[in-house]
């Protein structure tokens, strides 16, 4: 497929994939708790409803920031798929996340503000790894674009098993799964922060956040495919297995303190991904 076609596929099908994943997630979670659970398309009904509700605007800046959040999240995916520089795309991804922090921080609600502060901690825990991961992928393949890595004869997951394991750890944070859902939650009523980041967002404002999250999920799937660059179906299978593990972890752990999130994320990613790179380029395994 040409890059332009791939970009179109991502922009249109990315949220569809993300929404279906969220729906499957809710069904599997319900089954783990002995319930039947909602229909597969429930996340689409939810977002459809949010766009039909009136908006309770708490200030004039929140909504433009949220639209920025969606646009830059989609742009990060477009850059990755469309042949942009992979490491640059990681900075765009971080910028997208920052828009959400700004939107939540702009509200007067203390829940929203605590959510924004914790989201910054979450970004501090996860973003350095994404840049390290992309740098590692670019280093082992000698390429800096999506198509370059996919066409490379080097098998990324074989060269970077440590980085792949660290990625599994970090997506728990990115997917907002327990025990790392310190800043906001999707459907579990963690009342401590009400809804954290999204406490003060109503109607379509919350819809934008969900949409951006679907793009983010699709982008994470693309990253897993990058690791399995010799076989895209294997990469997609690996992502499904990883997501299943995330749901299991989500349902069997309770929320951690932010200190634990930050320390464990840095320790795990530094030891696994950093150790992986050291073994490759310093020790020369």
């Amino acid at each position, binding site marked *: 497929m040409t890059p332009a076609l791939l970009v179109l596929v991502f922009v249109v099908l990315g949220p569809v994939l993300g929404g279906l994943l969220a729906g499957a997630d809710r069904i599997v979670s*319900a089954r783990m708790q002995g*319930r039947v*659970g909602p229909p597969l398309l429930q996340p689409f009904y*939810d977002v459809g409803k949010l766009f039909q509700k009136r908006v309770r605007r708490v200030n004039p800046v929140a909504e433009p920031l949220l639209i920025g959040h969606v646009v830059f999240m989609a742009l990060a995916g477009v850059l990755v798929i469309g042949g942009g520089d992979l490491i640059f795309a990681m900075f765009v991804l971080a910028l997208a996340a920052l828009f959400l922090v700004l939107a939540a921080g702009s509200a007067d609600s203390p829940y929203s503000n605590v959510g924004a502060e914790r989201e910054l901690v979450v970004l501090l825990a996860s973003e350095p790894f994404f840049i390290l991961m992309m740098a590692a992928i670019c280093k082992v393949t000698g390429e800096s674009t999506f198509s370059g890595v996919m066409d490379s004869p080097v098998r990324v997951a074989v060269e970077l098993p440590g980085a792949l394991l660290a990625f599994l750890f970090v997506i728990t944070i990115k997917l907002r799964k327990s025990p790392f859902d310190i800043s906001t939650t999707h459907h579990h009523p963690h009342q401590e922060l009400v809804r954290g980041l999204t406490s003060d967002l109503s109607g379509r404002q919350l819809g934008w956040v969900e949409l951006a999250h679907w793009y983010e999920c699709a982008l994470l799937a693309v990253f897993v495919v990058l690791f399995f660059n010799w076989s895209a179906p294997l990469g997609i299978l690996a992502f499904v297995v990883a997501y299943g593990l995330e749901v299991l972890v989500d349902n069997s752990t309770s929320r951690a303190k932010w200190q634990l999130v930050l320390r464990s994320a840095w320790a795990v990613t530094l030891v696994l991904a950093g150790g992986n790179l050291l073994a490759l380029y310093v020790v020369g395994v």
Partner: protein
Amino acid sequence: MSYLRRSPWILHYDGSSCNGCDIEVLACLTPLYDVERFGVVNTGNPKHADILLVTGSVNERNIEIIQNLHRQMPDPKVVVAVGACAVSGGIFARAYNVQGGIDQVIPVDVYAPGCAARPETIIDAVIAGIGVLERKRKVSA
């Protein structure tokens, strides 16, 4: 097509309930009744909610809180009074600090009687509430 029907998010507020109705509301979320089948989510946040579920009667101390929660919910929205106390004040109706049912302070759309209201009654009331929600959307659109 209306998605309101398929995704009613609930805010549960305990006025001055004895907790009997609250336990029945929570029972609706358990595997036995599992209201998430209908897309119902207990949000705990008025700004995300479509249906305000109130248990217990209104007293002097919670008038403002109930009105404030109701104001914070974005339109269209529906109020369901759950249990005898929320409907009319119940056995506490003539207590010195009790104002009566929820409809004394905010407009109520659906009344779910019972002491305590049974989970089946609460689910029926929520489903009736979805119908009201849909009508309100058509009127405002």
